[in-house]
């Protein structure tokens, strides 16, 4: 029999990225707080392997602040179910963890959106953030030719990162039309930190072409990618490469809030001014309420942390800053909206669901996600639609389905023991 661990906290924070860290920092002085993350260390996607970091890194002050609190850190826990009132179940290598709470703060972040095009399943075609994470975990890219393509501010950050690790970044290709992006560039004048960051990336990427309004149409190669053809609608261009780092901006990880019954609006969790979701005692912060990047996550996390412990006054003091961050998020959403041409990228034979090898032409015969799932197995594999769900929503306009436990694949005994009536109670 494997271990069974039970905890109760006043405030339980799910997600150890910036929003979760800020929430824990704000709540911890006034409550018993735990912060839970599925990775071996805190930091989330953006601060992966840089928490703790050098003091000069933006995460430095937050690391110090969290250190000074009594917040418990629970690493390597994957939350898969919400089986009872104020209770979550998580799996760790040692078995089931039962987490009880009075207040819950969800900061589960976002993942990259992948859109299928011919060749996107070739080896070494990897998500932009995914490749960055692999390099942080030790994948050598020195001297490798890498094309970075897709959409969103992440592309520039990843390209700069790859270059700093010795990669030869062949080009950065952003699908957003130049006019759409120019409008965004003008609007970020209101956000000086964003400008300095953009300038910094551009400086680091001097001599790397940044092609705005270009998108990938085909990746070529036998067993792995050897080149990629891109277009701007009028012209085509083929670039040789060893890696194609490709992601189309971000989609929120709303599985857990949806399982808890939180209302969603346009795919994001709906929250009030104190970051409270529609379900009592549940607060949400960061990318799951709208893709807005680091500043929005830190501010919303702080507000949620304060509000969850009744500190409404410091929470309110952050409203003005949050409004600004929300303005930036809205501008970003407009700027990096995927262009309709991307719906025409997959060929009839192009795989859309990688887990179950389901081709575009099969899916086109269906009129709903459920119909496609039941009749083609699309989304039925180990990723449970996390990869293809965002693509099918964009390609075919299918909204997702209601969610059932477990929200992540979990060992049979973990799920079976999870339901065992607790003899102690």
């Amino acid at each position, binding site marked *: 029999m494997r271990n069974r661990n039970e905890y109760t906290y006043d405030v339980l924070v799910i997600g150890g990225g910036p929003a979760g860290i800020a929430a824990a920092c704000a709540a911890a002085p006034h409550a018993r707080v735990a912060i839970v993350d599925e990775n071996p260390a805190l930091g989330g996607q953006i601060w992966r392997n840089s928490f703790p970091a050098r003091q000069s890194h933006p995460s430095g002050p937050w690391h110090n602040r969290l250190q000074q609190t009594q917040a418990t850190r629970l690493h390597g826990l994957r939350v898969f179910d919400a*089986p009872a009132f104020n209770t979550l179940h998580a799996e760790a290598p040692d078995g089931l963890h039962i987490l009880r709470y009075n207040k819950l703060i969800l900061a589960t972040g976002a993942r990259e959106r992948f859109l299928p095009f011919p060749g996107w399943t070739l080896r070494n075609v990897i998500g932009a953030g995914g490749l960055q994470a692999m390099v942080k975990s030790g994948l050598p890219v020195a001297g490798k030719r890498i094309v970075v393509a897709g959409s969103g501010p992440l592309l520039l950050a990843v390209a700069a990162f790859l270059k700093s690790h010795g990669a030869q970044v062949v080009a950065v290709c952003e699908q957003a039309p130049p006019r759409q992006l120019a409008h965004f560039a003008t609007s970020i004048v209101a956000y000086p930190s964003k400008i300095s960051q953009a300038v910094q990336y551009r400086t680091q990427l001097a001599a790397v072409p940044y092609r705005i309004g270009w998108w990938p149409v085909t990746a070529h190669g036998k067993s792995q990618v050897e080149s990629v053809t891109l277009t701007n609608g009028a012209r085509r261009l083929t670039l040789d490469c060893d890696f194609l780092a490709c992601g189309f901006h971000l989609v929120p990880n709303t599985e857990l809030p949806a399982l808890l019954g939180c209302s969603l609006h346009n795919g994001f969790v709906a929250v009030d001014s104190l970051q409270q979701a529609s379900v009592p005692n549940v607060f949400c912060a960061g990318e799951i309420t709208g893709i807005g990047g680091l500043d929005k996550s830190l501010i919303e996390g702080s507000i949620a942390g304060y509000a969850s412990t009744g500190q409404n006054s410091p929470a309110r003091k952050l409203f003005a800053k949050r409004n600004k961050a929300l303005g930036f998020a809205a501008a970003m959403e407009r700027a990096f909206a995927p262009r309709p041409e991307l719906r025409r990228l997959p060929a009839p034979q192009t795989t859309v669901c990688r887990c179950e090898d389901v081709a575009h032409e099969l899916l086109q015969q269906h009129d709903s996600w459920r*119909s496609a799932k039941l009749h083609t197995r699309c989304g039925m594999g180990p990723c449970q639609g996390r990869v293809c769900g965002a693509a099918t929503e964009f390609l075919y306009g299918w909204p997702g389905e209601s969610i059932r436990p477990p929200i992540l694949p979990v060992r*049979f005994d973990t799920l079976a023991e999870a339901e065992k009536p607790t003899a102690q109670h």
Partner: protein
Amino acid sequence: MSSNCDAIVLGAGIVGAACAMELAHAGMSVTVVEPGVIGGGATAAGMGHIVVMDDSPAQLAFTHYSQQLWHVLAPQLPPAAEYETPGTIWVAADEVEMQEVARKQSIYVTRGLPVRVLDSHALLHEEPHLRPGLAGGLLVSSDAVLYPPVAADYLLQQALSSGASLIRQAALQAGEGKACLANGDILSSPRIINALGAAAPSLAPGLPVHPRKGHLVITDRAPGFVRHQLVELGYVRSAGSGTADSVAFNVQPRKTGQVLIGSSRQYNAHDKSVDHQILQRMMQQTRRYMPGIDKLSVLRTWTGFRAATPDKLPLIGPHPADPTLFLATGHEGLGITTALATGKLIRHILTGSGSEIPVEPYLPARAFHPTTETAHA
């Protein structure tokens, strides 16, 4: 708008699809009414086990006949229907259940079914992941499995290519030769077949059909982990109980290599969300028989509603109170197995074609009691 046809089939689950196919093949003009995904109700929630069961002579005749129909149809099914014949092993935990193995064997043999009694050793040889120490089992090698939504869609496509039409609307009312649809259209037909499964009473009030909720769990791919459909003989007790919630060890190898795990039965459960307590009981029961399953990864759980009748036999044939209304529901956990036979019986009843088995045990009239008797009870 209103239109006429020879027969209206309400519901495109596997039973409705089979009825539509048979009637279309008989030359009738058929309209199928289904607002949702084809085979998206209990059909999608079921295991797709095509099994001969012998709770009663009528059940044995019906399941055996229908299984033979599936065997004949199998070569025409699309690969995505995942039709396979792994056989069933009825697992006996102890010597008392071995007596049940002997009883079952004698009955199955009289029908010419290929069966083999397994002792404790032979059982482990067939299924190495079962717990050692089980008494044995009965291997019925003709039992099959398939993937029901694709099979239902295949049957419906057969109907459509024989001239049937499909209307993607919900029916709000049915009877006296008319079906009223959600969009206001009225369909007229002297024959309306209610094949709505557990939802059948919504259009035929007073029908003695009750939802019996079930849970299923599916694992990630683990090819060869289970080789036959394995069902504990205690299942008969579980499935037979008319009122109490119950669980039974019931696992199935899918063609994908995944393991599909049942089964649970609950009355008076109308909420389709996963019930953690019964799910836990079901999974604990599975672990008792198959401890090695602990290390497999669970991908998904879901629920569905079987259409249960008091005597565990389906309702197939005319509604006693409305000569235009026909029923094809009440199949409980055997809707996939007996869909094809149901289609044949409906065809026989509506067209007078010959029938290979007697229809009387399944006629709905048996389940409707005169009101005086009900009041008396």
